C-alpha cells in the first residue's frame, strides 16, 4: 500500500533540473568546486553557521509534532537511487477524461489560484502596446462573422451567415415586412411596403459611432452595443465594467426597451438559433496585484504577483453581470458551481456563455463559465464551439506586475484550443470538452462541424519561421484528431476557408492564389485533391449548389501586386480539376481589405451577386457592385451609389449591406437605406437616417 501510494505521489512530482544526473554534470562539478573552495574558508563557514543554527529549531518543531534528537537509521538500510521524474509513471496512470467541474467551491478556488499563479508572467512595458494592438486585431477578426444565405426564404434575403439556421448579429436585419438597423447608437425600423421609417430608438446617450449589432426574432430585437476604446486590456487587469451592453427591444409597437444586460468583460460573439441567443463574453479575473517595485529583482516581483493570485478570493474569478428590467437593476455573479474548466487552462480568462430567449426576456440568463480563453465563436444547431487563438507571447499580461526582461513562454505551443458546448436544450449550454490543433485560425469559417466531425483549418509557423496550413479532422465527441492533411501554401497566408459538406476550399496567397480543394470524406484521411493557381486571391468563398463556387477578392499581377477588386466563378464539380469559368475585374474598383461576409449578397432567384466597393478612388468608393451569374457566365450589371452627404463633412456614404426585400434590392449605408429595382437597378426610394 505504501509503495502504491508513493508511486502516486511520485507521479505528481514536478520534474527539476536536478533530476537528470545533475551532480555528475559539468554544472554539478562546478558547484562542487565552488563548495570545496568555500569550504576552506573558515570565516565564511562560521558566519554561516551562526546564521542557521538559531533558526533551525523552530522549523523542526513546526514540521514534526514530537521533537526528538536525530535518530540514526540502521546501518544496513539501503539508500535508494535519487528519485527520478515520473516519466515511467505517466503511462501507468489510467486514462480518464479530466473532470470538467470543480465539485466544490473551495476546490474551484484552489485550482483557479494554482492555475492562474502558474501562468502569471512578467511582461516588459514596451511590449504592452504591441500586445494591445494584436489583441484588438484578434478580437476584430473574431467579430467578423460570416455566412451562407439561408436557402428557401422565398421573399426576402437574410444575413449571409456561416451555417444555415444559425443567425449572427449584424447591423441590419429583415423579416420581409420590415428592416431593422442599428447605426450610430440608434435603432431604426423601416416598413418594407411603405418604405417609411416607422420607429426610432436611441440607445446611447449621445449620437456617436459605436460598434453595434442586432439579432431579430418576431417582435423582439437584441442589440449589442460594444464599448469604445481599447479592447480587452483593462487597467490593472480588473474588468473595466465598460463591457458590452445588450438591450432587448420590443418592436410590436413603437420600439421600446424591455431590459438591458451588461456583463463585465469583453464581447466575443453571439449566435441565435430559433429565438435562443447564446452570448459569449470573456473576462479577466479581478486580482489586486501589488504595485511593481522596480528596485526588486524580477523573481521577487513575480513571486509577489503569484502571491497575490494565491490570496485572491473566488469572487475575483467569478464573472459578474448586471440586469436592468422593469426599472430594477440587479447585480449578479456566476455561481461557482457553474464554473468549469478544460484539462489545461491558465485561469487568466473566463469565458461565459449567457442564454437569452428573445421571446421571454432577461429573467434567467443561465450563465455558465469556462476557465478558458476564446475569441472565435462557431455554432451549428446543436453545438457551440469557442476557439482561442494561441497567445502571441506569454498568455497573461498584467499592467501592474510588468517590467523586467521579456518572458515569452516558449513552452506555450502555438495551439488553438477548441471548447465544445451542447446547445440542444434551450437552457444553459453543457460543456462537453476541449481539444486543440497546432496553429491559428483565420476566423470562424476555419471551423466546420459535419457528420460527427469537427474540421479545422489552421496555420502554424514552423521553427524556421515558415507558415504552413493544414486541415485537421477531429472526432466531435472526443475532440481528438482523427486525420490531417498539411503542407498547404507553405510560406503563404490563408485568405479564405470554406467548407461545403465533405469538401473544403482553402485560398492561400503571397504572389499567386492557390485555391486548394480538400476531400474530407474519410475522417482518418483528409487529402488535398485539387489545386488552381491564379494571380490575386479570393478572401471570401461562397459555394453554389450546382458545383460552382463564387470567390470575391483582389486581382493581382504575376509579381504578387494587388491590382483591383475581382469576383470569380469557379467550377469545382470535379474536385481534382477546379477551373475558373468567369471573372469580373474592376481595375477602377480597387478594393481594400477583407470582405465582411455579411456584406455579400447572393440572391439565387435572379442570379444576383452584390458586393460593396471600398476604394481610395473618390469617384468609386462606397458603391455596391451588382453582378449577374448564369450558367458559366458572370456579368456586370452596374453599381449602386448612395446620395452624397453634402457637408460638412462632404462625403459619399459607403454601402455596407445589401438585401432583397419585397421584390426590391435594398442597400444600406450609415446615411440611409436605398431601394432599387432588382433587374434594372433603377432608383425606387431613399430613406435617410437623419
Amino acid at each position: 500500500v505504501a509503495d502504491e501510494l508513493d508511486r502516486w505521489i511520485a507521479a505528481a512530482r514536478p520534474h527539476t533540473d536536478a533530476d537528470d544526473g545533475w551532480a555528475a554534470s559539468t554544472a554539478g562539478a562546478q558547484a562542487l568546486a565552488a563548495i570545496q573552495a568555500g569550504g576552506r574558508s573558515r570565516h565564511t563557514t562560521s558566519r554561516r553557521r551562526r546564521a542557521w543554527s538559531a533558526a533551525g529549531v523552530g522549523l523542526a518543531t513546526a514540521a514534526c509534532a514530537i521533537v526528538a534528537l536525530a535518530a540514526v537509521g540502521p546501518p544496513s538500510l539501503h539508500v535508494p537511487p535519487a528519485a527520478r521524474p515520473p516519466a515511467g509513471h505517466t503511462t501507468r496512470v489510467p486514462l480518464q477524461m479530466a473532470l470538467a467541474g470543480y465539485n466544490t467551491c473551495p476546490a474551484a478556488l484552489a485550482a483557479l489560484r494554482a492555475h492562474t499563479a502558474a501562468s502569471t508572467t512578467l511582461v516588459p512595458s514596451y511590449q504592452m502596446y504591441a500586445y494591445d494592438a494584436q489583441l484588438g486585431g484578434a478580437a476584430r477578426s473574431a467579430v467578423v462573422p460570416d455566412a451562407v444565405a439561408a436557402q428557401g426564404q422565398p421573399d426576402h434575403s437574410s444575413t449571409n451567415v456561416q451555417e444555415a439556421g444559425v443567425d449572427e448579429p449584424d447591423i441590419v436585419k429583415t423579416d420581409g415586412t420590415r428592416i431593422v438597423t442599428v447605426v450610430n447608437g440608434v435603432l431604426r425600423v423601416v416598413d418594407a411596403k411603405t418604405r417609411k421609417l416607422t420607429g426610432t430608438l436611441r440607445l446611447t446617450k449621445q449620437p456617436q459611432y459605436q460598434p453595434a449589432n442586432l439579432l431579430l426574432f418576431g417582435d423582439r430585437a437584441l442589440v449589442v452595443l460594444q464599448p469604445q476604446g481599447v479592447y480587452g486590456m483593462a487597467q490593472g487587469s480588473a474588468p473595466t465594467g465598460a463591457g458590452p451592453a445588450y438591450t432587448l427591444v420590443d418592436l410590436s409597437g413603437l420600439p421600446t426597451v424591455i431590459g438591458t444586460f451588461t456583463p463585465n468583460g469583453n464581447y466575443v460573439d453571439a449566435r441565435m438559433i430559433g429565438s435562443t441567443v447564446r452570448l459569449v463574453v470573456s473576462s479577466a479575473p479581478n486580482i489586486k496585484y501589488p504595485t511593481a517595485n522596480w528596485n526588486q529583482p524580477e523573481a521577487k516581483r513575480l513571486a509577489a504577483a503569484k502571491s497575490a493570485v494565491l490570496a485572491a478570493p473566488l469572487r475575483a474569478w467569478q464573472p459578474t453581470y448586471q440586469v436592468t428590467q422593469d426599472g430594477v437593476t440587479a447585480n449578479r455573479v456566476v455561481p461557482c458551481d457553474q464554473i468549469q474548466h478544460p484539462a489545461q487552462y491558465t485561469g487568466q480568462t473566463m469565458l461565459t456563455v449567457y442564454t437569452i430567449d428573445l421571446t421571454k426576456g432577461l429573467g434567467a440568463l443561465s450563465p455558465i463559465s469556462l476557465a478558458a480563453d476564446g475569441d472565435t465563436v462557431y455554432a451549428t444547431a446543436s453545438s457551440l464551439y469557442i476557439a482561442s487563438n494561441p497567445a502571441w507571447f506569454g498568455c497573461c499580461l498584467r499592467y501592474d506586475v510588468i517590467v523586467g526582461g521579456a518572458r515569452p513562454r516558449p513552452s506555450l505551443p502555438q495551439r488553438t484550443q477548441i471548447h465544445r458546448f451542447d446547445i440542444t436544450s434551450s437552457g444553459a449550454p453543457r460543456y462537453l470538452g476541449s481539444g486543440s490543433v497546432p496553429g491559428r485560425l483565420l476566423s470562424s469559417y476555419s471551423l466546420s462541424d459535419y457528420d460527427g466531425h469537427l474540421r479545422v483549418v489552421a496555420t502554424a509557423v514552423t521553427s524556421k519561421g515558415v507558415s504552413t496550413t493544414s486541415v485537421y479532422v477531429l472526432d466531435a465527441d472526443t475532440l481528438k484528431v482523427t486525420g490531417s492533411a498539411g503542407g498547404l501554401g507553405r510560406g503563404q497566408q490563408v485568405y479564405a476557408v470554406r467548407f461545403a459538406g465533405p469538401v473544403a476550399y482553402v485560398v492561400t496567397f503571397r504572389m499567386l492564389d492557390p485555391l486548394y480543394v480538400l476531400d474530407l470524406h474519410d475522417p482518418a484521411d483528409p487529402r488535398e485533391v485539387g489545386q488552381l493557381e491564379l494571380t490575386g486571391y479570393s478572401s471570401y468563398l461562397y459555394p453554389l449548389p450546382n458545383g460552382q463556387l463564387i470567390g470575391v477578392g483582389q486581382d493581382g499581377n504575376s509579381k504578387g501586386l494587388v491590382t483591383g477588386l475581382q469576383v470569380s466563378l469557379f467550377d469545382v464539380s470535379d474536385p481534382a480539376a477546379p477551373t475558373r469559368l468567369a471573372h469580373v475585374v474592376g481595375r477602377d474598383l480597387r478594393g481594400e481589405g477583407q470582405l465582411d461576409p455579411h456584406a455579400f449578397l447572393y440572391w439565387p432567384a435572379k442570379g444576383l451577386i452584390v458586393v460593396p466597393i471600398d476604394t481610395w478612388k473618390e469617384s468609386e468608393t462606397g458603391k455596391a457592385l451588382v453582378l449577374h451569374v448564369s450558367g458559366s457566365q458572370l456579368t456586370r450589371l452596374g453599381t449602386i451609389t448612395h446620395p452624397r452627404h453634402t457637408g460638412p463633412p462632404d462625403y459619399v456614404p459607403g454601402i455596407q449591406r445589401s438585401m432583397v426585400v419585397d421584390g426590391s434590392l435594398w442597400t444600406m449605408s450609415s446615411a440611409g437605406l436605398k431601394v432599387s429595382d432588382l433587374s434594372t437597378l433603377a432608383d425606387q426610394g431613399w430613406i435617410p437616417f437623419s
Partner: protein
Amino acid sequence: VDDVDRRAVLDEWFRTYADRLLAYLLHRTDRETAQDVLQELFMTAYRKAPDVPEPPVGWLFATARRLLANKRRGLRRHDDLLARLADDVAATNDEPVAELKQAFAQTLAALSPGDREVLTLSGWYGLTPAEAAQALDCSPNAYNVRLHRARRRLSEHLTSAGYEAGTPAGQLAEALRG
C-alpha cells in the same frame, strides 16, 4: 580527520545525494536560492563531517530544510512549493497526469507545511522512513504517526474536493485510505 579525508567524503556525499537535495530545494525556492543553500549545506557538511551520521542523507535533508527556512525567512513568507506544483500542472500535456498533479497540488495547498514535508520526503526524494524521520528531526515512531495523519488529511481533502474513484486523483485517495 584531515582535510584530504574530508574532501573525499564530501565528494562522495555530493555525488550520491546532491541531485535529490537540489531537487528538494528547486521544488521549494528559486534557482539562485537553491544553489546558495546547496553550497552552504555542503560547506556545513564539510565542516561537520566527523559528527554527521552515516548514511548522511537524513542529516543532509534536515540541514537543507533549516538553511532554506532561514533563507526564506529573509526573502518571502509564502511557500514556493505550491507555485511550483501549479507551474508543473500547467506544463503537463498528458491530461490524466495533469489532473493528478492538479488534485495533488490543490489538496496539498489545504494542508500544513509540515504535512507537505512529511508527504513528499519519501515519495519524491526516495528517503526511507528512518531517513525521513531524521530529516524532520523526529523519531521514526513520531514520523510514522505524522505520516499516517498527513495521509489521512490528504485523503479527506481529495474526497471532499470530489475526486472519486475512477480518476487518477480518486485512485490516489483510495491508495491513501487503503
